[in-house]
């Protein structure tokens, strides 16, 4: 081993031949006598120095779903630094740590640099695809030929398209166009893996099936429930910016089974037993009602003002007059009257006195009490009802649409919709579009009221062999990111032709026949991205500001344009002819290259902002494309408070529904379609409620795969604050600072177990352990940590890549993972009412053994 300089110097000094050996210091010359030490502390001026030259260029981060408006510092055509767009009203000019990883991701040496072709027909995990580089033209030709084979055989529906990360505007040129014009009803978004079950809460109570906004500037009591918005979920920079103010002026409560970042900084941490959130929410509602803490302005009051909500007692419906809500007394009678803190304490493991204390704090601050519910309270079998129960608390405290409360989406700036595809859909396409062979949404046992269950696709494909002959997927990695991950390996190894548009040789790419290298759109793509937070909706640009170092192309615009031209050249012109309608709004010209098409699409979409004839509501007018590129974003007007009050909620009753007539209608319609009862639907879909209970927020006992005897630990999955979805693990900086996830260890992947359990099992920190569930097993390091409850173990999602790159894996060539992927042990199951995939709620039992 080579001696370090230090070792060398010391070794030399020890043998009294200091510096001997011919180093740069020429130590063989006599040494001058050092000047006295005190002089060494006399300050001396440092030589002048100047910051790097460059310019800030507006862009949009897509590292999580907030899609923050950002700026990249571009220096000599290179992306070097990142900050929030300084005019952003959502992030105040800051990015969370994810944003700073954009240059690292852009310049990841393990990116796919050219299109690839598989030469090994064998497919499977750990089987080398033996990829070889090919030209873009060869790749697009191969894809077009396979697509036309399907069309010529009259079976375009055997093409399956699956969308991963996307741009909310450009997606219409792929996800919104290809299935219709080519002709397949087999197309899916990744959304069902994300957080769709949580939308059932606001959706079934107030008719808003979307992500809420929170008035963090004014709220006096923030309840973060099943999410950790200092780290993930949404509006992370805004939350980091405001959190300390709320802690200082009010009360912050964190409901999370593991010690999250928010829990570490909250006044109250409620480490609820996974999946029992409905019991806790019910008890909080019970206390708010029995102690008279509900908000009269929103909810109303008893006719004679006397509170009849007494534990265990039924209340007559006609004694209470509701204002903006509907069904409060029904909810009380069906569910809440027996949901005492003592009952909940037994179910959810939170002491009754803490439940009382928290309910009182929420009531005291009402209506400036914001309950921020995240996927952890919803993404599980039966999660719809927990989502309803948690969100309904906002109704009780009257925080809906008020200052300091919980808001719907503000209206955003106007954008141009791409033209209709109608004229380009032929008979073959029309027929193919009606085929849904792989989509279980709407099946009797999968009402899927919110989303198509993409994670059920492998199960449907196994049931219908031959239904799919070709798969195209963009910016996805279901073999890593979806529960029951191994099912994706099995199914994709049998697909005859798979085209993957992706940045890195991911797990999913290992099954691809053609890999098309994608751009990182924050630094390399064109698009307009929309979102909202902090009371404003906005549109923000991505504008390909750097010199691309790879041959990647934007999947929704550039690749699609090339593919459309190729299909046209081979006799199917419909897609290309449709794309010709998307013209540069300034010149009226159609694109003549893929990059031009990408830019024109961004210009087309955003033209109503920068070519507005009259001033728009919101930001000051922006005149012209150049001005829009320079500013990079436009906000709509600030959110209007109480916009749904006065009977304008988009529910069946037009009120905030504690008894969901909206769910009753949807479920009844679904039952009718299958000529059965709602109770039958609930039974086959795995819910415990029957009758009217099914239409109020209520507690359903958690479903668990694996008995406690065989699988004694309940597994808790959560997200890293450094996850740019499942993609940043190949960055050395991700690994270096993994420790910023509480309890985690840099350059590693640990499962966290309570020390009391460790003592019982004779396990200690640093032990290699195997985690086994009904779905599979992974081997990781153990960390004993007081941030988890005995009987549960927690592990962050993200690591465990067996492909993707050389940093993310232990050995890329041999497919050896770094750590273990949670999705290999999480069972594939669903909240069937919404169609969302289960990830949380303790639905997977595991056992831990020394590896």
């Amino acid at each position, binding site marked *: 081993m080579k001696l*370090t300089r*230090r070792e060398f110097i010391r070794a030399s000094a020890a043998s009294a031949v200091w510096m001997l050996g011919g*180093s740069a*210091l020429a130590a063989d010359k006599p*040494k*001058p006598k*050092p*000047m006295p030490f005190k*002089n*060494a502390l006399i*300050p*001396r*001026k*440092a*030589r*002048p*120095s*100047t*910051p*790097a*030259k460059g310019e800030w260029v507006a862009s949009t981060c897509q590292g999580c779903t907030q899609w923050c408006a950002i700026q990249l510092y571009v*220096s000599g*055509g*290179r*992306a*070097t630094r*990142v900050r929030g767009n300084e005019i952003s009203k959502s992030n105040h000019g*800051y*990015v969370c740590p994810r944003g*700073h*990883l954009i*240059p*690292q991701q*852009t*310049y*990841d*040496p*393990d990116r796919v*640099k*050219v299109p*690839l072709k598989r030469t090994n027909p064998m497919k499977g995990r750990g089987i080398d695809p033996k990829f070889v580089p090919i030209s873009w033209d060869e790749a697009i030709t191969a894809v077009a030929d396979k697509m036309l084979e399907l069309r010529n055989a009259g079976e375009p529906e055997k093409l399956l398209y699956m969308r991963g990360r996307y741009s909310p505007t450009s997606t219409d040129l792929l996800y919104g166009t290809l299935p219709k014009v080519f002709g397949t009803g087999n197309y899916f978004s990744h959304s069902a893996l994300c957080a769709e079950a949580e939308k059932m809460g606001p959706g079934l109570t107030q008719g808003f099936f979307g992500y809420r906004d929170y008035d963090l500037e004014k709220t006096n009591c923030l309840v973060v429930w099943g999410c950790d918005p*200092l*780290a993930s979920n949404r509006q*992370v920079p805004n939350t980091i*910016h405001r959190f*300390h103010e709320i802690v200082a002026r009010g009360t912050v409560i964190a409901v999370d089974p593991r*010690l999250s*970042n928010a829990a*570490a*900084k909250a*006044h109250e941490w409620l*480490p609820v037993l996974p999946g029992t959130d409905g019991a806790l929410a019910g008890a909080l509602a019970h206390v708010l009602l029995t102690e008279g803490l509900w908000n009269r302005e929103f909810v109303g009051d008893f006719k004679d003002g006397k509170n009849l909500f007494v534990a265990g007692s039924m209340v007559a419906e006609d004694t209470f007059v509701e204002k903006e809500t509907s069904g409060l007394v029904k909810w009380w009678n069906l569910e809440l009257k027996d949901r005492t803190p003592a009952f909940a304490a037994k179910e959810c493991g939170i002491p009754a006195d803490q439940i009382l204390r928290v309910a009182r704090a929420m009531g005291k601050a009402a209506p400036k009490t914001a309950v921020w519910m995240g996927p952890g309270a919803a993404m599980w079998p039966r999660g719809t009802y927990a989502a309803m129960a948690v969100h309904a608390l906002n109704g009780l405290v009257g925080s809906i649409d008020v200052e300091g409360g919980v808001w719907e989406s503000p209206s955003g700036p106007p954008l141009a919709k791409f033209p209709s595809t109608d004229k380009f859909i032929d008979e073959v396409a029309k027929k193919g579009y009606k085929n849904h062979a792989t989509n279980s949404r709407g099946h009797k046992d999968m009402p899927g009221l919110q989303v198509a269950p993409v994670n059920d696709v492998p199960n449907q494909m196994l049931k219908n062999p031959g239904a799919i002959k070709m798969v195209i997927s963009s910016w996805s990695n279901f073999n890593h990111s979806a529960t029951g991950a191994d099912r994706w390996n099995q199914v994709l190894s049998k697909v005859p032709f798979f085209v993957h548009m992706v940045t890195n*040789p991911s797990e999913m790419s290992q099954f691809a026949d053609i890999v098309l290298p994608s751009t990182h759109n924050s630094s390399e793509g064109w698009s307009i991205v929309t979102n909202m937070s902090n009371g404003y909706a906005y549109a923000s640009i991505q504008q390909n500001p750097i010199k691309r170092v790879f041959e990647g192309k934007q999947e929704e615009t550039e690749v699609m344009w090339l593919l459309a031209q190729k299909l046209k050249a081979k006799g199917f012109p419909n897609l290309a002819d449709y794309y010709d309608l998307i013209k540069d709004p300034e010149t009226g010209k159609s694109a003549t290259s893929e990059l031009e098409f990408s830019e024109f699409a961004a210009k087309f979409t955003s033209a109503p902002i920068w070519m507005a004839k009259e001033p728009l509501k919101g930001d000051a007018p922006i005149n012209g494309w150049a001005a829009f590129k320079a500013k990079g974003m436009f906000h709509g007007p600030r959110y209007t408070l109480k916009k749904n009050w006065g009977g304008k909620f988009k529910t069946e009753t037009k009120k905030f529904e504690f008894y969901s007539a909206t769910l009753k209608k949807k479920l009844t319609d679904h039952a009718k379609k299958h000529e059965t009862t709602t109770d039958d639907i609930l039974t086959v879909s795995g819910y415990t409620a029957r009758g009217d209970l099914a239409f109020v927020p209520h507690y359903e006992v958690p479903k668990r795969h694996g008995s406690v005897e065989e699988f004694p630990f309940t597994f808790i999955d959560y997200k890293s604050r450094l996850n740019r979805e499942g993609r940043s693990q190949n960055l*050395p900086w991700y690994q*270096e600072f993994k420790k*910023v996830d509480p309890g985690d260890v840099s*350059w590693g992947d640990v499962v966290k177990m*309570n020390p009391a359990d460790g003592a019982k099992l004779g396990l200690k920190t640093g032990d290699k352990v195997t985690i086994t569930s009904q779905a599979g097993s992974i081997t990781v390091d153990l960390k004993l940590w*007081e941030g988890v409850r005995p009987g549960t173990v927690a592990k962050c999602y993200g690591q465990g890549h067996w492909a993707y790159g*050389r940093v993310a894996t232990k050995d890329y060539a041999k497919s050896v993972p770094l750590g273990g992927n949670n999705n290999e042990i999480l069972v594939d199951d669903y909240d069937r009412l919404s169609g969302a995939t289960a990830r949380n709620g303790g639905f997977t039992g595991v056992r831990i053994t020394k590896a």
Partner: protein
Amino acid sequence: MKLGMVIDLSRCVGCGACAFACKTENNTRNRANGQSHNWADFLMHSEGTFPNTRHMVIPVLCNHCDEPPCIKICPGNPEKAGKGKPYKALFKTPEGITMHNPELCVGCGDCQTKNGCPYSHEKLDGKSLTGETYSVISLNAAEDEPQPFWADKTSAIPGCTSSGAEVAAKAGARVPAMNDWQGGETKAIRSDDVIEKCTFCYHRVSNGLQPACVEVCPSQARIFGDQQDPNSKISQILKKEKSFRLQEEKGTKPNVHYVGKYSPRA
């Protein structure tokens, strides 16, 4: 003038943005040989038993001490400096920054030892991966490529995926995302055989900008400025709030101060 920093732990959420901004700004390389090369890092600590568990984070960096043992221990290079000239690689600037001149550094690493810096380690072990230890001074070993990740010519899939060296060449910089600041004592990319450490972003602060870690903090937990200016924000905060410094008992008189509590439950 005496530059210093206050970190408000009640604002800090331990997100890591400051550490990334520091790596970005200063082009620090990846960890190897017990050297983190993180000029900004974190101490992390969990205590108490479930459910009364608390978790705390303390962002750390060079303390730019008034009594810097690193300068005392630095052998410097008297010969290269010339007779009667300042010869220490580590020195104080008139602004109070503990600065490093690589030309006078012999790469001995004495400044990393217990006697050289109570906040550093010659070789970090596993404890630094959990936030138990850290080092504010890192050593670039003699004859080691200072940016090995970007000099590496190997690929995951030859011909199909790239290499660090190829990306750097195509991007046109030794480090593709290189933040190419000019001049100064410490260089934008260090050579081998020298130590490296935080300069309080001298290339920025000497030009009226805030240090990178201060500028990017989403909760504005870091306040940087002249502690001798009674009107500066840092002076006012230090006057108003109870503050502490790391390892005060060592007598190094750090210029990085902490106020506030990370957890309201602590």
